[in-house]
């Protein structure tokens, strides 16, 4: 018998078919499901089933984060409807506007545990793979089906093993690794597949950085992007109470579709764009492009370590006239910590604007929408045409430090000259 990948083990357990192998279609029961404002659509479909409540309300998480505080009267009505229905269905794990981004809260609140099957009605649900869970995105109607039946069909995916060796060089972060992986894999190189991360870099990589890689794997289409549970994962749960699920790691003789080895010490600060995530280059090649807006935040890079990295560049400096710096912490806790550590003050003193915790302008809903001809450098995960507003705007993606350096210069800039 051959060994198993993490996906085979988790989906085997969740489907009660421990023999499940890559390529099999299984009916699997999730341990946790999450939806955001699209809970409105989930419930619209769910209400057609005539059921009193979801199969297990304790496994349901609802977060308002995409358009918070409400950007329009229409959104406010959607929020109000969701507040009613979480009461009606006895969904206790409800995070109202201002608490933070769904993917951040699942991890930060220790709701996701290693070895779990997690479904989210959002593509970046892969983020929770940082905790060693098989976490994947579905649509709203699919989520309604899961609310009704407690299960869904899933194909056990092929797995790509990504071995990250070496250490990050000065001015580079998990984001730069993530951008260079998307460049290498392309926009569909991991479609329908799971990514498993291993290697020297991973050994002491903190959970927030792992989240960046699990999050951005979606931009190559990954179905799940997993850091098998290890000492770092257990450290994350220390003192948090509750039962850890048995950690799931791959067998030594597991079969991978492909093994990739990347020496991260060769990766420079990267900038991607416009319009395609895989179109990334070393910051040096794109330096000098004028930017009107610099945005730090999102499920990719809105955590404390990201705001700290930005503040190291910003401290004692000013945002360039003609450029606006917008920061949206990924959660209330991140915002709190950023205040405690003087990080928020450094951002404000440099001339930045801090938005309430949430998705911010990432999806073009509010709080920093781009006009025609404007250029934004952002710590988010997508630079698709029209995503942040006008079809005639351009979005570049980079690490928070590179975004901060670009805000200071008013043009795409190398963060290394601002770091000791």
């Amino acid at each position, binding site marked *: 018998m051959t060994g198993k990948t993490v996906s085979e083990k988790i989906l085997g357990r969740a489907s009660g078919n421990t023999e499940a192998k890559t390529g099999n279609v299984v009916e699997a029961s999730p341990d946790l499901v999450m939806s955001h404002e699209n809970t409105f659509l989930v419930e619209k479909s769910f209400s057609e089933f005539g059921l009193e409540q979801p199969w297990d309300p304790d496994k349901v998480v609802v977060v308002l984060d995409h358009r918070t505080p409400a950007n329009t009267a229409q959104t406010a009505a959607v929020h109000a409807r969701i507040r009613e229905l979480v009461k009606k269905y006895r969904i206790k794990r409800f995070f109202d506007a201002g608490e933070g981004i769904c993917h951040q809260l699942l991890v930060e609140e220790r709701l996701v545990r290693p070895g779990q099957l997690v479904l989210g009605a959002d593509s970046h649900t892969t983020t929770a793979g940082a905790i060693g869970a098989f976490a994947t995105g*579905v649509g709203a109607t699919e989520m309604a089906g899961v609310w009704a039946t407690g299960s869904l069909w899933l194909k056990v995916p092929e797995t790509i093993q990504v071995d990250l060796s070496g250490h990050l060089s000065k001015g580079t972060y998990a984001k730069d690794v993530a951008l260079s992986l998307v460049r290498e894999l392309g926009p569909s190189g991991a479609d329908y597949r799971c990514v498993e991360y291993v290697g020297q870099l991973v050994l002491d990589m903190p959970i927030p950085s792992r989240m960046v890689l699990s999050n951005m794997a979606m931009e190559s*289409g990954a179905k799940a992007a997993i850091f098998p549970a290890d000492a770092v994962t257990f450290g994350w749960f220390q003192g948090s109470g509750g039962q850890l699920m048995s950690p799931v790691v791959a067998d030594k003789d597991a079969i991978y579709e492909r093994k990739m080895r990347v020496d991260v010490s060769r990766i420079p600060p990267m900038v991607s764009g416009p319009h395609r995530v895989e179109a990334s280059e070393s910051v040096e090649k794109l330096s000098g492009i004028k930017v009107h807006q610099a945005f730090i935040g999102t499920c990719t890079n809105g955590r404390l370590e990201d705001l700290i990295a930005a503040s190291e560049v910003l401290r004692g400096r000013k945002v360039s006239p003609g450029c606006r710096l917008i920061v949206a912490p990924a959660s209330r806790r991140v915002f709190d910590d950023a205040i405690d550590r003087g990080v928020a003050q450094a951002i404000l003193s440099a001339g930045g604007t801090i938005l309430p915790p949430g998705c911010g302008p990432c*999806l073009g809903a509010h709080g920093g929408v781009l006009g025609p001809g404007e250029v934004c450098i952002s710590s988010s995960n997508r630079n698709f045409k*029209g995503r942040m507003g006008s079809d005639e705007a351009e979005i570049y993606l980079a690490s928070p430090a590179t975004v901060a350096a670009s805000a200071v210069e008013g043009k795409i800039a190398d963060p290394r000259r601002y770091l000791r």
Partner: protein
Amino acid sequence: MKARGRVWIFGDDVNTDLIIPGRYLDNYDPAHLASHAMEGVRKEFASEVSKGDIVVARDNFGCGSSREQAVTALKHAGVSAVVARSFARIFYRNAINLGLPVVISQNAADLLKDTESATIDTDSLVLSSEDRQRVAKLEEIPPHVKRILDEGGLVPHIKNMLEKRVSH
């Protein structure tokens, strides 16, 4: 499923922000969504598309967000099927779940001409130009997926399942 309409040909990696930008998602009304379908990649699509039309694309159609409004926008605009060389996985599932046929074809985007009339038959697995001079082969829809599609999507599929449970 059989349908007749014009084909609209697109390239690789048509993402969900191009199919329906996030700025329109405050409003869940299908007619509103349809009126902006494909706006990011082809401005005239929403006003010119008509019932039965077929979207044909190359690789990785529907990549990006999980927003199922991308499917709603196309479906409500009258699109009868999306044929592509490959689909991003969440878009694929969303389409099945909302009862919009999504079919893989290796050569449809190369064989057919943009805006020409064509017929699609997802049972005999062909997409052919009206004069039948050019016929693209469609790949079979996996049986566990076809079952959901044949019932009209996931909501009717689950309704049927729940009714069976009650009657047993």
